[in-house]
């Protein structure tokens, strides 16, 4: 099993009881605002949210509250790209990508892979949205993570960049095969990226399956809307 997630707890007004398993390398997480999608990603990344349960990605156990296992974020080997990309504004592009990476060759490869090599000396503040996103992705893969967590990676981009990036990302993730969890609001992302769909609402998983199957029989009104627009 690639993903095995069971998380429970309370975060402000949100009661979290998230549970899903999936063998798919790519899992798209959809759901209304405040449903707990970002919480899911941050919890897998190791943020101290106070949630209990069990998180396994591939052969790695990241959290197992019953056995007292809670791997700290710096040892989880996850590549986390938050909404807004989370670049370090005081570092240039290369220093961002190299942050935390041990192997200079991996840094170069990551910059090549996301076509940011020519931006290496640029200040992060001077980048366009698409460039920032590619830098964030390059940084996430440069430390050779065991999985990727992408929080709405395409939503901050303009329509044209988004289309181009969607195709690129779908191809790139399929080729590299790193287990990846993608939070999105867009049915086109789900269709392009493939993999499995996990629908989250009010802190729980309300439906799970192949995107076509969920689109054919949506179990929740927000899923109907999601696939209507798509």
């Amino acid at each position, binding site marked *: 099993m690639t993903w095995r997630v069971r998380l429970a707890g309370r975060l402000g007004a949100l009661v979290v009881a998230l549970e899903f398993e999936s063998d798919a390398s790519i899992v798209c997480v959809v759901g209304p605002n405040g449903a707990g999608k970002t919480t899911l990603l*941050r919890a897998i*990344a*190791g*943020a101290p949210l106070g949630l209990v349960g069990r998180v396994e990605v591939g052969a790695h156990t990241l959290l197992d509250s019953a056995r007292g296992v809670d791997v*700290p*974020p*710096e*040892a*989880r080997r*996850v*590549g*986390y*790209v*938050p*909404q*807004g990309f*989370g*670049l*370090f*504004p*005081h570092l240039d592009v290369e220093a961002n990508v190299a*942050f*935390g*990476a*041990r192997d200079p060759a991996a840094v170069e490869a990551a910059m090549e892979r996301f076509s940011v090599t020519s931006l290496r000396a640029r200040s992060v*503040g001077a980048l366009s949205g698409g460039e920032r996103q590619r830098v964030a992705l390059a*940084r996430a893969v440069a*430390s050779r*993570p065991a999985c990727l967590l992408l929080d709405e990676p395409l939503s901050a981009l303009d329509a044209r960049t988004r289309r181009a990036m969607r195709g690129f990302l779908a191809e790139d993730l399929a080729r590299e095969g790193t287990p990846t969890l993608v939070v999105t609001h867009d049915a086109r992302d789900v269709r392009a990226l493939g993999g499995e769909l996990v629908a989250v609402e009010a802190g729980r998983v309300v439906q799970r399956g192949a995107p076509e199957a969920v689109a054919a029989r949506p179990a929740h009104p927000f899923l109907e809307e999601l696939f209507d627009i798509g």
Partner: protein
Amino acid sequence: MIRGWRWLPFALPGAALLAFLAVPLVALVATTSPSALRAGLAHPLVGPALLLTIRTSTAAVALAALGGLPLAWFIARSRGRVAAVLETLVALPIVIPPAVVGIALLLAFGRGGVFGGLGLPFTSAAVIAAQLTVAAPFFVQSAVAGFRNVDDDLILVAQTLGASGVRVFFRVVIPMAWPSLVAGLGLAWARALGEFGATLLFAGNMSGFTQTMPLAIYATLESDVQAAQALALLLAAAAFVLLLLLRLVPRRGASR
């Protein structure tokens, strides 16, 4: 915009206040001359007071930063009641009158006090202690505000990239909070430079040992106004330069 002359009732009191704030400073500068300034600076109390003030305020600000960074980080990361209580405690010396701080320091560290054995009162170390007490809160408050502004997600990203807590603090948190930290240092320094009441009560007024510039102003005012004015001008200039430097701090970390 307010049209016609109706803005006058607002503008007049505002202009009056501005003038009232400016007049003493203008008088301080306008009533001296280069020769009077030179004569004032030659007064035997001025040199020692200047050196002592530079030494003690630097030490006080360094200590404020050393202890203030971890304390501010802890306050910024705590939630709810703990954070509120700590923040109030740290802010207390800002609102408590300096004379009260001086008495309190004497009661704690003076003869017969809990820490009386340290022999702190009426030494240069007592000057530093008084300055530290009144100046540190300014640094801590500013640092807490700066740390709170650092996005949790950036910290989490840095951690997931393999950075330990110490590395995250020095490579991400401090650079991003830099403008607030520098502003806090500047405010703390300005406050330490001007410290008077607590120093007088806790450290005394001995030239070369505990007489800082504000105390030397007090000591020279009756006998030699020129010396007092020269010291006052030096302090005012230092404060002005400090303010100017703070305005020039690059706002790095402020942009995303």
